C-alpha cells in the first residue's frame, strides 16, 4: 500500500515534468512567431517605441501595402513559383525513373548503380568544378541553372526505392510479366498509379527545398529578372539592413526607419505564409517520408 502511494507520487511528478517541458517548448517556439506577426500588423511608431510585446498595437496595414506594391517581391514570387513547380515535376520524375529499376531484383546491375549513386553522397567534385560544368553546358544565367544541377537528391531515391520494394509486390510484377507486360508499361500502368503516397512525399521534399533555396541562384544567376524570392529577400532583409538614411529631417528619418522595420516583419510573414499554410495538411506525408527514409538500407 505504502509502495503504491509512492509510485503514484513519482508518476505525478513525472507527468508534471513532462507537461511543463512541453509547455515551455510550445511557448519558446510560438512566441517569436506571434511577435513577428504582431509587429507586421502594428503601427510603425508603436514598433519603434517598443510597445509591441504580444498583440498588434494600433493595428495598421501600411507595411503590407508597401510589400504588395513592391515589384521585386512580385517577380521573385512568380519566379520562385515557376522554379518550384517545374523543378519539382522534373525531380520527382527523375527520382521515380531511377528508383523503380533499383527496386526490382530483375534489374541486372542494380548494385553497381546503387553504389555509383551512393558514392556521390560521400564524395563530390565541389563548388568550383560544378560551377564550371554549368558554365560549359551553356545554362549559366538561365532558368535551367536553378532546376538542373541539383535535380536529384540521392536520399530521396533511397526513400522511393524502399517504398516501391515494400508496396509493389513481386507477385504483381511477375503476373504482369507473364501477361506480356513490358517494364516500361509496368512503370506507367502499375508503379505510378500505386505510388501516390511516395510521389506526394517526394514532391513535398523537393518543393520545400526548391522554395527555400537561394545559394544556386547566387552562384548561377546574374539577371535580376530571374531572381527567385529568396535572393530578393536576402537583398531586402539582410544586405540592405544598415543602409544609412539620406533624409536630413530626423523626424522623417525615424518614421521612415520605423516603417522599414515593420516592412521587414511583413516581408517575413508574406514570404513564410505559403509553406506555413499548407504544412498542416501535408504534415502526415512528411512524417511518412521521414519514416520510410529511416528504414535502414
Amino acid at each position: 500500500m505504502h509502495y503504491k502511494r509512492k509510485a503514484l507520487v513519482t508518476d505525478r511528478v513525472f507527468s508534471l515534468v513532462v507537461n511543463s517541458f512541453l509547455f515551455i517548448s510550445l511557448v519558446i517556439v510560438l512566441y517569436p512567431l506571434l511577435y513577428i506577426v504582431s509587429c507586421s500588423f502594428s503601427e510603425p511608431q508603436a514598433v519603434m517605441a517598443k510597445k509591441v510585446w504580444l498583440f498588434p498595437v494600433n493595428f495598421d496595414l501600411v507595411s503590407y501595402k508597401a510589400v504588395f506594391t513592391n515589384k521585386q517581391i512580385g517577380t521573385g514570387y512568380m519566379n520562385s513559383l515557376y522554379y518550384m513547380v517545374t523543378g519539382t515535376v522534373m525531380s520527382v520524375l527523375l527520382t521515380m525513373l531511377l528508383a523503380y529499376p533499383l527496386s526490382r531484383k530483375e534489374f541486372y546491375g542494380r548494385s553497381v548503380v546503387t553504389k555509383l549513386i551512393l558514392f556521390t553522397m560521400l564524395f563530390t567534385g565541389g563548388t568550383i568544378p560544378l560551377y564550371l560544368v554549368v558554365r560549359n553546358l551553356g545554362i549559366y544565367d538561365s532558368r535551367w541553372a536553378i532546376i538542373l544541377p541539383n535535380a536529384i537528391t540521392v536520399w530521396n531515391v533511397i526513400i522511393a526505392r524502399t517504398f516501391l520494394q515494400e508496396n509493389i509486390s513481386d507477385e504483381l510484377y511477375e503476373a504482369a510479366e507473364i501477361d506480356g507486360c513490358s517494364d516500361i508499361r509496368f512503370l506507367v500502368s502499375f508503379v505510378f498509379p500505386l505510388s501516390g503516397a511516395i510521389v506526394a512525399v517526394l514532391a513535398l521534399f523537393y518543393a520545400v527545398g526548391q522554395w527555400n533555396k537561394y545559394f544556386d541562384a547566387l552562384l548561377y544567376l546574374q539577371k535580376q529578372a530571374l531572381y527567385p524570392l529568396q535572393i530578393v529577400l536576402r537583398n531586402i532583409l539582410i544586405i540592405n539592413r544598415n543602409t544609412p538614411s539620406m533624409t536630413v529631417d530626423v523626424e522623417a528619418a525615424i518614421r521612415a526607419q520605423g516603417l522599414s522595420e515593420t516592412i521587414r516583419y511583413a516581408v517575413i510573414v508574406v514570404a513564410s505564409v505559403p509553406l506555413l499554410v499548407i504544412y498542416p495538411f501535408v504534415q502526415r506525408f512528411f512524417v511518412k517520408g521521414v519514416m520510410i527514409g529511416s528504414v535502414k538500407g
Partner: protein
Amino acid sequence: MKNALNQPRQLSLGRKMGRHWQFYVIVALPMLYFIIFKYVPMYGVLLAFKRYRVSQGIWNSPWVGLYQFEKFFKNPSSLKIMFNTFSLSMYALVSSIPLAVILAIALNETGSKVWRKSVQMVTYAPYFISTVVMVAILMQFLDPALGLFNAIRASFGKDSMNFMGEAHLFKHIYVWSALWQNTGYNAIIYLAALTGINPELYEAAKVDGVNKFQKIWYVDLPSIKNTIVIMFIMNMGFVMSLGFEKAFLMQNPLNLQSAEIMSTYVYKMGLINSDFSYSTAIDVVNSIINIVLILTFNHIAKTKNKEGGLW
C-alpha cells in the same frame, strides 16, 4: 517464355540484360544526370593540382602538384577555419540529438492526444521557414537598437548589446536558432521509433514495478538506441559541409573570425577571388575530413553494436 521464368539462374549475362533491356532505357536519363552533374565535376577535382587558366581549360593548365594544398595549410587562418567548422558542427550535433530525443519522449509520454498534436504541430512549424528568413528573424530580434532581446534586457536595466557583432556569440546564436527551428522536425523520427516499441516490453516492465522514469531509462532509450546512432552517423557525414547557407548569411566583418567556415571560405576564394584551383583544393581537404569522420564513426558504432552501423 514460361520456361525461362522457371529457370532464371541459367540465363547468360547477355540474356539477363536483354530480357529487361527496358530498365536501361528507364535509368538512362537519371544516370545521365549523375554523370553530368556529379561525375564530370569529380574530374574537375584535378583543378586542385593545377594552376587553372581559363584560356587553357582544366586539362591543359599547368600541373603544380600539391602547391595549392601547401598554400592552404601554410595560411595562418586555415587552422582557425577548420576549427570553426568542426566545432560549430560538433556543437550543433551534440545539442540537437539529445534535445530531439527528449522532446520525442515527452510527446510520447503526455496523456492528452490533443495536447500532444498541438505541441507537435507548433514545434514542427519553424522547419518550413527558409534560411534567408530565419537569419532575417535573428537579425530583427538581435538588433542593437530595436530588437526584442535588447528590449527584454532593457526592461531588466541592462545595456543594449550588438549580439551579431560579438564573435564569441556566433556559434551559440547559430546553434540555438537551429535548435529552435529544427527540434520539432528532428523529433519525428524518434517519436516514430518510440511508438514502434513492442507493448510486451512495457507489460514486462510494469510487472517488475518500475516507475515512469525507470521505464524511459530501461525500455524507451535502449529501444531507440540504434535510431539515435544512425542519425548521429548520418549527421557526421555533413559535419564539414554543414551550414554554408546560414553561416554565410550570418557573417559580418565583426564576427568573421569565428564565423568563417570551410564552405564559405571555398565560395569566397573561388567565386569572389576567382582562384579556382585554390578553392577546389580546400574543397578536397574538406571532403577528405568528412569521409574520414563518417567512416570512423561508422566503424566505432559497429564495434560497439553489430546493428549500430549505417552499413
